[in-house]
């Protein structure tokens, strides 16, 4: 069942893309702020995971610590730099955060060198699982489950908690949210840090499967940006369906039309935008 295996591979990529793109998307929806260095946070999640795994000799220590460290790094980055360009034009945001990509790349190369690292998968998920007579790595199934679990947690958080209601109100109508006394700035900071933490989580979770090297962030950043565009910025549902579509299209594209593999997701993006110029599930706005 080659199809089924590819489906699982696609879902696994979709899970990682979801972790990465949901922060990017909600931050953009809330504040019209574009952080191109989001992929760099993914890369540092992976590297810090490698460091933590080595220091504590445990995958799980890395799994829980790296996202926290990346979130703290994101908070510092925001306080020092990004806060000042938040209200600037998109072009300035793009240029500054694009610059951060290069800085991140060089920092990673200086600290860890250019050779790839990896984290050993945890013992629990080290083996394979029999699926329809095929052996599939258990860790990859864990990645899919992780994506689903984070999605469920975010859904409940957004729909059921007060901070979730504030986030939704802020995405929906920032001016009115402020007029009601909601400190949108603080809500934004919280969401930004959460998004950074999830990018770090994606990085450390990817480390046993993908090689960790300077520049590992670029291919997945581009996929994550396409997810935001296809899914429609600002919504959890958009990030979810966008990740599924892009993850599956990229995986199946490489199998079904290998000669056009690089173009498959762009064709998908073009097709979606022709039908729905604002993406599949954009956050609701009044106008």
């Amino acid at each position, binding site marked *: 069942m080659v199809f089924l295996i590819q489906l699982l591979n696609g879902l696994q990529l979709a899970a990682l893309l979801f972790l990465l793109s949901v922060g990017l998307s909600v931050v953009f929806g809330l504040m019209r702020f574009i952080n191109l260095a989001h992929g760099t946070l993914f890369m540092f999640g992976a590297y810090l995971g490698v460091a933590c795994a080595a220091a504590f000799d445990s995958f799980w220590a890395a799994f829980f610590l790296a996202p926290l460290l990346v979130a703290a790094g994101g908070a510092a980055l925001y306080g020092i730099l990004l806060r000042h360009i938040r209200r600037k034009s998109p072009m300035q945001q793009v240029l500054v955060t694009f610059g951060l990509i290069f800085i991140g790349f060089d920092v990673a190369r200086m600290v860890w060198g250019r050779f790839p690292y990896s984290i050993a998968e945890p013992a629990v998920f080290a083996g394979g699982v029999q699926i329809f007579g095929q052996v599939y790595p258990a860790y990859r199934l864990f990645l899919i489950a992780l994506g689903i679990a984070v999605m469920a947690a975010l859904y409940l958080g957004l729909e*059921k*908690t*007060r*901070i979730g*209601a*504030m986030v*939704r*109100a802020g995405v*929906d*109508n920032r*001016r*009115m*949210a*402020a*007029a*009601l*006394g*909601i*400190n*949108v*700035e603080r809500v934004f900071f919280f969401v930004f840090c959460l998004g950074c933490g999830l990018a770090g989580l994606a990085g450390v979770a990817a480390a046993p499967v993908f090689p960790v090297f300077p520049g590992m962030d670029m291919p997945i950043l581009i996929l994550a940006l396409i997810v935001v565009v296809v899914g429609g910025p600002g919504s959890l549902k958009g990030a979810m369906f966008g990740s599924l579509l892009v993850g599956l299209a990229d995986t199946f594209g490489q199998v079904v039309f290998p000669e056009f593999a690089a173009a498959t997701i762009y064709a998908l993006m073009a097709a979606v935008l022709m039908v729905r110029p604002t993406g599949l599930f954009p*956050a*609701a*706005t*009044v106008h």
Partner: protein
Amino acid sequence: MFEARGLKKSYGALAVVRGVSLSVAAGERHGIIGPNGAGKTTFFNLLSGEAAADAGEVCMDGINLGKSPPDARARAGLGRSFQHNSLFAGLTVAENLAIAIAQRKKLYKIFWRGFLSRTEVFAEALDRAHRLGLGAQAHTRAAHLSHGAMRQLEIGLTLALRPKVLLLDEPTSGMSPEETAAIKNLIRRLPEELALLVIEHDMDVIFDLASHITVLDYGEVLMRGAPAEVRASPAVRARYLGMG
């Protein structure tokens, strides 16, 4: 109780608000009129903190609000509605109101807990929807309301905060006569101690509702007084009512 002193605002070489002072007592119904471009909405933006004044100050209960942003002013008791509909379009009428109520009750302090399940918040939201005349549409998404109902809900949202001062920017603009009547009715039933500042183009509405009127012209106060005085003033008639 609510006071603005010498507010000024320029955009480049264009002085939009040129030293406007205004004081409103609790329970006062204060109308602001003036021709297009007189600086009325900019003046409101200076009061609410949406725009930063170049000079002057805004005080609530004698406390200078300084440079505090709109959300801090809202928490200090300053409610406002906008000239264009401002609602949480993706949420239902009741959810919109529940957000404002939860905000007033400071329920967000414990942010990880739920609030929509809290019956007292939702009961109040439904009650307020009824009193706004939107009871039948309590579970309709705000985006699907008529223009008039949206404005009613928007005023209702601000009222749910129990503000001390309410700023309404053209509450009846673009409305049918029935919708205008509904808004007038809503304004008449505002809590008595609330101080109201309202910008309005419909002279019938403003002369009917206001106890005091300030006429703005070219960013300055042209005249201030009771509705009858303003209506009788030759200067205002010439400049604004077009009855020179």
